[in-house]
């Protein structure tokens, strides 16, 4: 009798436990908890703190901290900021335009080659993608060996062999910017290419057949079918690579170190120098907020362009 009761009670406890487990399991938020915790600790809280620190006089040297808008005021009054923003703009615009044009060109070329069953198209695609997995630091160092004005610099030693005046790739402020953009395009083109390649593959081939029947030539097919069909991919891609380029840090620090002078010191490098070289945590936080705001504006643009997938389901 008692034993049965205990067994029943035990059974009830089991059921209660199981149903609690069921309830936890069937709630999506318990599955999201680990991600939420990590992103909360390593992203959300630091981001909030960056905003807070921007209104302080915090320094990595330590010392007393109090709230002030002096750091923000100092940054706005700092004449260097405009130069940095302009440098960042030139570097980003050059990289984004270069990567997209080049990426689109390669994607179209590979697509054409595959359609005509030409040899080596997969090899070409692979080669472009290989540059993409090169670590940023190595990217900077490799291009330094190419641009170097020392005897082992590849480009200049070829120019010398052809009796052409060598170019000051990294020591002339204007050319150094061009060099930085070239090296960034070398590494970054792969992403645009693969996005455009996927988008090209997704275009309905009957559109081209219809256009051929109507007598459209190659350029017209590209202009009136390919480009309009690629519009969403191009928009989304330009925002993604703009953000990626804005955040580029390692490839520049190892190629030019921001020099000569401040010629290639982009916003991320300037932020880094402010915090970790000058130990000015508050000033660096103001710059971080600026970086965040720029990314946020771009991200909102991205979100508004994402296809509404839920509606199709």
């Amino acid at each position, binding site marked *: 009798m008692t034993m049965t009761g205990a067994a029943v009670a035990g059974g009830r406890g089991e059921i209660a436990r199981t149903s609690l487990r069921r309830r936890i399991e069937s709630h999506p938020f318990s599955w999201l908890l680990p991600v939420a915790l990590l*992103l909360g600790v*390593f992203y959300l809280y*630091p981001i909030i703190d960056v905003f807070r620190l921007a209104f302080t006089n915090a320094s990595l040297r330590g010392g007393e901290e109090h709230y002030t808008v002096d750091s923000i005021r100092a940054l706005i009054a700092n004449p260097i900021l405009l130069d940095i923003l302009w440098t960042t703009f030139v570097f980003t615009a050059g990289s984004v335009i270069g990567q997209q044009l080049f990426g689109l060109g390669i994607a179209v070329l590979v697509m054409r080659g595959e359609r005509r069953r030409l040899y080596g198209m997969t090899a070409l695609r692979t080669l472009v993608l290989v540059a993409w997995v090169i670590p940023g630091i190595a990217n900077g160092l490799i291009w330094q060996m190419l641009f170097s004005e020392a005897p082992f610099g590849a480009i200049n030693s*070829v120019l010398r062999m052809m009796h052409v005046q060598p170019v000051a790739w990294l020591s002339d402020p204007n050319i150094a910017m061009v060099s930085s953009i070239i090296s960034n395009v070398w590494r970054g083109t792969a992403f645009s290419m693969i996005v455009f390649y996927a988008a090209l593959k997704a275009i309905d081939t009957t559109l081209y057949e219809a256009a051929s029947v109507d007598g459209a030539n190659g350029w017209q097919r590209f202009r009136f079918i390919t480009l309009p069909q690629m519009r969403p991919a191009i928009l989304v891609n330009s925002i993604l690579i703009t953000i990626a380029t804005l*955040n580029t840090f*390692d490839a520049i620090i190892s190629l030019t170190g921001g020099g000569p002078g401040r010629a290639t010191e982009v916003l991320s490098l300037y932020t880094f120098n402010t915090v970790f070289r000058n130990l000015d945590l508050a000033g660096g936080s103001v710059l971080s907020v600026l970086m965040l705001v720029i*990314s946020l504006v771009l991200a909102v643009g*991205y979100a508004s362009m*994402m296809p509404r997938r839920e509606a199709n389901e």
Partner: protein
Amino acid sequence: MTSDARERLWDAATYVIAVVIAAFFLVPLLWLLSLSLRTRQEVYLGAARFIPKHPTLANFEQILSDPAFITYLWNGLKLSALGGIGCLLVAAPAAYAFSRFHFQSRSSLMMSILAFQMVSPLVILVPLYRYMSSLGLLDGHFGVTMVYIAVSLPMAVWLLKSSIDGIPKSLEEAAEIDGCSRFGIFWRITLPLVAPGLASAFILIMILNWSQFLVPFLLLSTDSKLPISVAIFTFAGTSNASSTQVLAAACLVAVVPAIVAFLLLQRMIVGALTAGAVKG
């Protein structure tokens, strides 16, 4: 000109352009290889010795026999792998929930996770540096691994979600009727089915972690804890013109693992990328 002849002409043009593009992407890597195989004297001869007359493996011997360099490689591998495994462990349940549960805030939550991807690691490292310093997590692999995991989480969640979307629900539904718990279904049925997706996400994250520079550069200071990406940067800072060939060899050793991993799993990685990139 007939249309066939015109197509052939375009084929020739395609080849010519393809060769130029291939050269642009290949020459930097070949130059690196060329420098790394030279003696110090030949380095000074520049492009005239693109193919070295006296090729040598001495530069590779020099760096690979250096125990410190092996430690850098090992640290890079360890941090990349731990970061990759940790990231998948955290991301997989969330990806499952986003794929299989239907709840109101789903798409907005997914977008907000993606939004974190847009935040530069530099921004979060500015305040994190101070916390980790006060928590004693600076200069340790644990702290670095945690940041690696957080940095690659948004991408991992999205990649795994689209992999799980791609497998049919029928097996899971059968298991549910048999009384399997939700977590049991996830662990015993969904995860094994999505193994190829997990593998390609893991490799992709490892390649990205291998290139990670800023996080270890800021959070680690002891030389024996540095991964290879930071080590070659430090080495470049101390090297001069007479050790360029050694730097080239070190660079090549740092680059090759990423290239090999990519080549082995190219199809999977490209598939994962294009599936997630543009579906609209």
